[in-house]
């Protein structure tokens, strides 16, 4: 058959170039450009409705982009019909064929391509997801989690150049989820496929992916290695969506050599210039957001540390609430300037627990803070996390 053209066997990095998808007036994906290196594990993270599925559908060929190009290596696949693309999808809703048994579901792609040893490959794939014993059952006779694993096997068995996974582990319990995460990662490194993994679960994204892209309202807010994203968020949305952040407004005082000096009603903060997001213009009086992760803050009773710390930023305040969480305690501290800052303190000994009303001093190393553009919404991404978790 004529389908063995060069394009369908395309190999190489996946390029999305200025991809846009509108449904009527609504722009679901907005001028999105990104490059996914061949063989990498790429996670697309974002709140519900931000356009993750739409992006994947365009790569799979199930949705025509309103504008933009999609390429694999040199080959432009934008106009290619889905069945000619070297791309397979693990659908968010599984989309298993109800009239075929599990074996036939997994064999479907192999049969269409006229592969010879269907049986060995299908059984291998079923072993992988530990469901070989249900090969003869129909999808309706499996649990949700089992169906999800079958959907995974059905796509992986084809060893496509790009595998699109739309929340492939959403229906699994925590233990199975961790196990499948490891399996997925193993398959990906072993076979060298490019994985694009859509998830709500930031922990999953960060543990599995080489590169994480945080998406919001049809655009990619930030893209990078998980640690970069976590340590140096460039927008308030990323800071809040990925883990927790304390963000509070401040004004630029000066740039002092390698450092930027900021000020708010609670005092001054000094941070290295490389901790400042590119969208910030470090001019005197410029409004910024100071950010620091709760676990990076050191909390002490104020009486014990009257002297101003020589190195580091600090704020004084009083404990408003504390909640004991086992390995750590979370404190909410109200500062004199009216900010609420949350702190995770490791539980080194039970005697050190602070209680409500205690005066405290919060300190953190300059390189642990980050500076964002002051015109951003401090709470961007906070609701999204709550919604995604709920």
């Amino acid at each position, binding site marked *: 058959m004529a389908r063995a053209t060069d394009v369908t066997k395309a190999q190489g990095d996946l390029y999305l170039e200025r991809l846009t998808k509108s449904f009527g007036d609504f722009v679901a994906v907005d001028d999105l450009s990104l490059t996914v290196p061949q063989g990498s594990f790429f996670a697309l993270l974002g709140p519900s409705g931000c356009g993750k599925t739409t992006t994947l559908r365009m790569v799979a060929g199930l949705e025509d982009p309103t504008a933009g190009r999609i390429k694999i290596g040199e080959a432009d696949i934008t106009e290619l019909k889905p069945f000619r693309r070297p791309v397979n999808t693990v659908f968010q809703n599984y989309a298993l*064929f109800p009239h075929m048994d599990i074996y036939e579901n997994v064999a479907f792609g192999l049969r269409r391509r006229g592969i010879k040893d269907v049986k060995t490959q299908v059984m291998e794939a079923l072993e992988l997801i530990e469901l070989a014993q249900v090969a003869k059952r129909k999808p309706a006779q499996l649990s949700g989690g089992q169906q999800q694993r079958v959907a995974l096997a059905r796509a992986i068995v084809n060893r496509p150049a790009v595998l699109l996974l739309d929340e492939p582990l959403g229906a699994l319990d925590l233990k199975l989820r961790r196990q499948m995460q490891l399996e997925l990662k193993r398959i990906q490194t072993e076979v060298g496929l490019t994985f694009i993994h859509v998830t709500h679960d930031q922990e999953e994204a960060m543990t599995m992916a080489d590169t994480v892209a945080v998406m919001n309202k049809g655009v990619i807010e930030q893209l990078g290695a998980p640690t970069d994203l976590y340590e140096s968020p460039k927008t308030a949305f990323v800071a809040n969506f990925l883990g927790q952040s304390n963000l509070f407004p401040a004004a630029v005082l000066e740039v002092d050599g390698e450092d930027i000096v900021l000020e708010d009603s609670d005092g001054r903060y000094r941070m290295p210039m490389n901790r400042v997001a590119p969208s910030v213009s470090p001019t005197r009086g410029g409004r910024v957001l100071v950010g620091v992760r709760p676990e990076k803050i050191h909390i002490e009773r104020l009486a014990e540390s009257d002297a101003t710390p020589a190195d580091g930023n600090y704020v004084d305040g009083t404990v408003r609430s504390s909640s004991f969480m086992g390995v750590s305690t979370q404190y909410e501290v109200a500062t004199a300037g009216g900010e609420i800052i949350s702190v995770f303190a490791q539980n080194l000994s039970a005697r050190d627990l602070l209680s409500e009303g205690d005066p405290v001093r919060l300190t953190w190393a300059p390189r642990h803070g980050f500076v964002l553009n002051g015109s951003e919404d401090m709470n961007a991404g906070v609701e999204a996390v709550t919604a995604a978790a709920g």
Partner: protein
Amino acid sequence: MSIAAAIAETADEGPKGPPPKRRGRFIPYLLMLPGALWLGIFFLVPLVTLFLTSLQTPVAGGDVGQFEQTFNFANYPETLTDPNYYVPLFRSFLYSASATILALLIGYPLAYGIAFKAGRFRNVLLVMVIAPFFVSFILRTIAWRQILADEGPVVAVLRVIGLVGPTGGVYPSAIAVVAGLTYNFLPFMTLPIYASLERVDHRLVEAAGDLYASPWTGFRKVTLPLSMPGVVAGTLLTFIPAAGDYVNAALLGTPKNTMIGNRIEFTFLSVNDYPTAAVLSFILMASILIMVLLYVRRVGTEDLV
């Protein structure tokens, strides 16, 4: 197993619900009661009467139409071996099967188009499928005389392309009868197929495309098997009534095109040979039942959910 049960069995594709609670055990039977009574009075009783009639013999020296109740089972082999009867019977199944196949060939694409391609015109098209029912069956069939008349458009076209001779026609003929049957039962084919196509999850077709199936392969491997319950129901709803139909043969055919329905009518009402007519009715019923069971066993069980 009754035909209704056979249809219900093939049409049933959903997962079985939980077993009913003990307390509500009798409710299903209560709900079935009116239907069961109806069937008992208007189906079972006449059926028994008919069966008894089929075993009657003429009263010796009596008038035409005078019979006495006997148990003359020889009526059956006698009727079955008479070419006056088995030829129309065979013809009925031939016409009916042809009409069913034609209706399937027309009805499936029609249903497919309405279900997947019609967009906002879907409801309008559905109404148009049912619209002929607003006109009486007999009138619609008579209209086909006009459509297929020698001066009509169909024959004119057929003459131009040479399918019929310059003086030839299609009415009255076997073709006209099959055309009438096809037309009259098309909605019974189209609607069940539409109903099952409409339930086919489009995302499954997308998944097939994602797994290297061309649109045609995707249709063969996913859409078609998932719409089989509708195909089975539609073919049964067309074949069964068409096999017993006598209006189309009477209005659109020649005496050479009589179907078993016409024979039964004639034997009952004109010859007044009630036992033979009853025998024919029973044979018709039994042969349909056997064919349907064979068909449902073959088609109904494979490829269904």
